[in-house]
């Protein structure tokens, strides 16, 4: 039985956001009603950036509010979309007159509520553009369906769009940049065990001792297949190889790589995996132009990791490198 450090499961999101804001008073403010997180000092005269979605993926998104990244985060309940009104309030709060880019992970509820919020914002004369993040290679099927899920690539998009917006780019430019990154980035994940929903006592799914779940999402759903448990190098290769193939990476390619812990992966494990990813890529002649290793887009306390690769077009790197100052990402 899993236990957690919580008060009431119903209050976990609002209490955690209050805690986050108390820890970063100079960076962010949490407004419990309507349930949004904004910069402590709102930006002026720039394209606004709003993102959000279900909670349980911390530090995403509230941890990425700040200079050089988001203006506003709109967190729903655990694994549940924020409401259209919440997103609407967040969108309006993100506007400083030059329009707002909504960065939306591809999940039915999120897409619906952000779309509606955009329409409502139009009533307030706030122009909006949407960047849909759909990077999860595991859900890349031809079938007529909801399409690829949005996972850790959202971090790269928030970072890159954030830098571009901070530098003064206009609404269309920021959105187009985000869409380009969204088109090019792919992610693949695996888990040794699922996360446990606040208030629940057992993980969302369970695995045999010899099984690893490949292609997991970040909402406790099972993956697309099971592979044998193996050492870090072997497991990591099961993520890197399909990504390399999908993105057509070859000798001379250059990528931005995100090795992301899913919540229950501790630092030694994650850095052993990061080394394997790095070696796996450089061994194929692919340069790792930039990399980021840490628990950024999580699924409660899921024990696993995701690898995101994004071809490092030369014009992207300055946006990636540009200063950022948020609770969870600062350089």
């Amino acid at each position, binding site marked *: 039985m899993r236990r957690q450090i919580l008060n009431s499961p119903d209050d976990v999101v609002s209490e955690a956001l209050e805690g986050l804001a108390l820890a970063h008073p100079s960076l962010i403010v949490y407004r419990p009603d309507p349930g949004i997180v904004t910069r402590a000092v709102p930006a002026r005269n720039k394209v606004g950036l709003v993102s959000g979605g279900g909670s349980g993926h911390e530090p995403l998104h509230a941890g990425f509010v700040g200079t050089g990244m988001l203006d506003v985060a709109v967190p729903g309940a655990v694994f*549940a979309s924020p*409401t*259209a*009104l919440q997103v609407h309030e967040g969108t309006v709060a993100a506007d400083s007159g030059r329009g707002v880019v909504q960065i939306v992970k591809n999940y039915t*509820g999120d897409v*619906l509520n952000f*779309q*509606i919020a955009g*329409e409502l914002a139009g009533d307030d004369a706030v122009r909006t553009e949407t960047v849909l993040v759909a990077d999860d290679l595991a859900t890349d099927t031809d079938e007529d369906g909801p399409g690829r899920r949005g996972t850790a690539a959202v971090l790269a998009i928030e970072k890159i769009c954030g830098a571009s917006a901070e530098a003064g780019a206009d609404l269309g430019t920021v959105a187009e940049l985000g869409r380009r990154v969204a088109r090019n980035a792919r992610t693949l994940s695996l888990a040794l065990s699922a996360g446990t929903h606040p208030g629940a006592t057992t993980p969302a799914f369970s695995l045999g001792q010899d099984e690893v779940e490949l292609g997991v999402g970040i909402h406790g759903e099972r993956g697309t297949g099971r592979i044998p448990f193996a050492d870090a190098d072997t497991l990591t290769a099961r993520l890197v190889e399909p990504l390399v193939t999908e993105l057509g990476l070859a000798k001379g390619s250059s990528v931005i790589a995100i090795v992301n812990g899913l919540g229950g992966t501790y630092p030694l494990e994650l850095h052993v995996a990061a080394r394997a990813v790095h070696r796996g890529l450089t061994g194929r002649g692919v340069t790792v132009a930039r990399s980021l290793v840490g628990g950024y887009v999580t699924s409660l306390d899921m024990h696993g990791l995701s690898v995101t690769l994004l071809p490092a077009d030369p014009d992207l790197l300055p946006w990636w490198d540009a200063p950022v100052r948020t609770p969870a990402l600062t350089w």
Partner: protein
Amino acid sequence: MTTTSADIQLVPDFGRLWVDTLFETFLDRTGALGELDRRAGDGDFGTNVSSALRRARQSIDVAPPSDYSGWLTAISRGFLGTGGTSGPLFGMFFRDIARCAATGEPTLGEFSSGLTAGLATVQRYGKAQVGHKTMVDALAPAAGTLESAVAAGAAPGTALEKTARAAVGGARGTIELIAKRGRASYVGDVARGVLDPGAAAAAMLLQAAALAQAGPGGRVDTSWIDG
């Protein structure tokens, strides 16, 4: 050349009357609606509707609306501030309904246009067709019936009564369907035999509209959802 009844005003204070009837109608029925979602969905539909209406009531209590558009906007916002798929869809549906009147209370024709627009919005966002076992199965026949009734010159009371009956009929028809949209679509054949809660709620709100137009003394009969 027939005369339409499009320009006839609905009863004075129709907005307030409808909203009051709505609260009344749904008051002790969200449990039953939730139960339907539990049988063929994820079980949260009852909570979603009741919290939407609670939110609407709160805002009405704080700032009582002054006209039709205000009353229905409160309902719209209540749903837009709620989760699930039904929250945003009903929220946007009521937004179109709230906007249908040029000024003050709507004419029957404006109301009919609002219903048609609301249906279109729900379909634009939800991508559901008739037969997919969703609220569309109640709203579509209702909107069609009202348009015809208006074109045929039916009086508002009769027109809205027919509309509600069409909606209830459409909702009941979902019992035999397997779902193609929403959570119920994940459970396949298991949903067959279960009334779609969203369709049921859509029909109930049109029953409430008919009663509001008919005037005091009546009661919306929702016993049909217990099937």
